[in-house]
């Protein structure tokens, strides 16, 4: 790997530190009665409101449709994710130090698997909250209606428009993986060019 590639990978790995200080994902709930904004943030180790009290407000609203309370302490992934992210980061730094291309490939594969697993997990939690409703005690029952928030993009959930997008931490992770992919692509192209020149 060229020195520039190695520096780029180090930067990409260090970019992941931002995921400890910024939310990975944000779900905003837009309705006329909430001009002050309402929403929740998924962080690497917690789920919280965008503003103080938002999570309590969302849970209170959800009781109308029979949705379970969102309790961050009941989501075990939030305890594991910081360790996984640390591992990905250290692995990235090891790639930069060693400068080996096979390690770069391995890192990229691991990173993509972790990212995909995270998104799938997020989807499954959303599915669980949105579908497994306590219909016995739900106050508002709309036949056939489920309340799974979108993975990305927006969706109308009764009087709320739910908008789900990566947070700054999420964008940092996306930037990190894209940098990794770009470097990997450049290194591969360079390898193909270099070989004929040697002969």
């Amino acid at each position: 790997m060229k020195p520039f590639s190695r520096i780029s990978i180090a930067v990409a790995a260090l970019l992941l530190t931002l995921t400890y200080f910024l939310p990975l994902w944000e779900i905003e709930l837009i309705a006329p009665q909430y001009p002050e904004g309402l929403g929740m943030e998924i962080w690497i180790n917690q789920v919280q409101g965008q503003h103080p009290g938002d999570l309590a407000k969302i849970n209170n609203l959800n009781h109308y449709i029979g949705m379970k309370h969102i309790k961050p302490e009941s989501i075990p992934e939030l305890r594991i994710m910081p360790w996984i992210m640390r591992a990905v980061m250290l692995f990235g730094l090891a790639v930069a130090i060693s400068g080996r291309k096979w390690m770069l490939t391995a890192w990229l594969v691991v990173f993509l698997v972790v990212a995909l697993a995270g998104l799938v997990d997020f989807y499954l939690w959303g599915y669980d909250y949105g579908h497994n409703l306590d219909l016995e005690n739900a106050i508002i029952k709309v036949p056939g209606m489920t309340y799974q928030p979108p993975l990305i993009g927006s969706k109308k959930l009764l009087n709320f428009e739910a908008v789900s997008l990566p947070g700054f931490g999420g964008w940092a992770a996306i930037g990190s993986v894209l940098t990794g992919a770009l470097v990997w692509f450049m290194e591969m192209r360079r390898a193909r060019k270099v070989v004929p020149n040697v002969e």
Partner: protein
Amino acid sequence: MKRTLIVAMGFVLSIIGIAAIFGGCSPKKEVGGFGDAAEKVYVAPGSYDEFYAFMSGGFSGQVSVYGLPSGRLFRVIPVFSVDPEKGYGYSEETKPLLMTSHGFVPWDDAHHPQLSVTDGQSDGRWLFINGNNTPRIARMDLTTFETVETIEIPNSGGNHGSPFLTPNNEYVVASTRFSVPIPQQDVSISSYKENFKGTITFISVDSVTGRMKIAFQILVPGINYDLSRSGKGPSHGWSFFSSYNSEQANTQLEVNASKNDKDFIAAVNWKLAEELIAQGKGQDWTASHYHNYMDDADVGQSEVLNSVKVLVAKDHPGLMYYLPTPKSPHGCDVDPSGEYIVAGGKLAALIPVHSFSKFKKAVEGNEFEGEFDGIPIVKYESVIAGEVKDPGLGPLHTEFDGQGFGYTSMFLSSEIVKWKIGTWEVVDRIPTYYSIGHLMIPGGDTKQPYGKYVVALNKITKDRYLPTGPELTQAAQLIDITGDKMKLLLDFPTIGEPHYAQALPATMIKDRSVRWYPIAENKNPFAIKAENESRIERDGKTVHVYMSTIRTHFVPDNIEGIKVGDKVYFHVTNLEQDWDVPHGFSVMGATTSELLVMPGQTRTLLWEPKMAGVIPFYCTDFCSALHQEMQGWIRVSS
């Protein structure tokens, strides 16, 4: 033929003459011609006003909050009067705020709102107002727009000249309107001259918490003390009080207190008073008075204090002087520089303006014309800076625009007169409808007025609005003062009765307004933090119901085991942590009022069931789609 013509001409001319006479005499009423006034007061839907205006509620005992320039009413803050709409004075937490040495007094007459100041400028922290009838001062918190403290003024016969602040909230001043025997005693009313005294009270304000405490009282000659302002800049350290009834009449004051050509403005050196108190010169007088405040747990507390420090004015040379001032002065206003003290002689045909620097020189040069009950009277010629000549009739109050002009309200000629400080010439006048009392320019009593508008606070409205029987709406008028000519922009109704008002830019307080109280910080001893903490506890005949409310249910909502003759305390905690979601609580037949509980707050209602049966209760503040379902029942057994 000729004769007929002359007769006809004479007839026509006399008609013209009669029309001219009547036309000339009829009151001029402005109709139309308002130009761009509508545009200047229109605040588009969803937009905000530029100023908050705090208006006294007069005999309603409350304070009303308006937006300017729109004249829209936002809130009535309950202060000295119970307010069943908000449960104020009915909930156990707020009852103590209305306690006095006379017992629970559920009403007062509130006149002069005063915004807290730092360096002579509004600082947007607190609002003070006086209770005139049963002498009291209240303090409101401008983050919650709630009354948080009241203090009773002992040795006072009516707290009118109050609560005017010194430039850094060092003191709230309070002068007695009616002189009375001090200390109180059973004497003949006709012994006024011999036995009646006045007091001027200085109440200290804690610079951090705002807590009030009577620092000292000054015993002064027995006349009527009316209004006040404190000095600033060069006159910092002094307070000025208008006074009337220097005749010391005790009956038919209308006539008997209007005889003297001049009454007084009293100048009090409060810095010297502070020193005298520090030197131990204050006498301890027994004077029982109540101090009530909302404690850290948002629960009202009353404490009874039994003595005050008193300085007898005539015993301390230099503490107090009288400045002769024409004709029963009412207003007593200090200009932004602190040099001029403007008096409004109710019955005078001029506005006298005293000079502070001339006053100081006169005192140094011993330019006195005599004494009144042991207080030196400075010579009128030695203190007067100028007189605004022919301003109109019945000058009352003056505010300032910070551009070198004073604006004085004229009660009798029903107008505002604008005059230039220094030359004392009248430069403009505008009619008001009708009989203006106070007037208010945003920041018009501070070092740097915000200007822009003057608000006329009128005493009579007559034909200005649709009639509502014999009692008509109270009213204010908004006048543009940005140009050379004052321009009437808007009439708007107010709650009764608007005496004085104060205003400040909305940006100073709007972003600090509390939206809800964090439930984790609720320290009310009867609060619950979650539904599963709700419970009913009996202690003899007293029952405590620890109740929670959240959209859209009460816990508990079925209450059994209550007996006729019990004292039932409902401690209702609103568990909401959301903006603008108060819940109400009301019980059928309760002889009190509802409770209105803010998010995160706890309020307590006492209910004493009189008969067996099942009694419903419900939420009174429409809170959600299922508000109608927010109800419960109480079973009362005999």
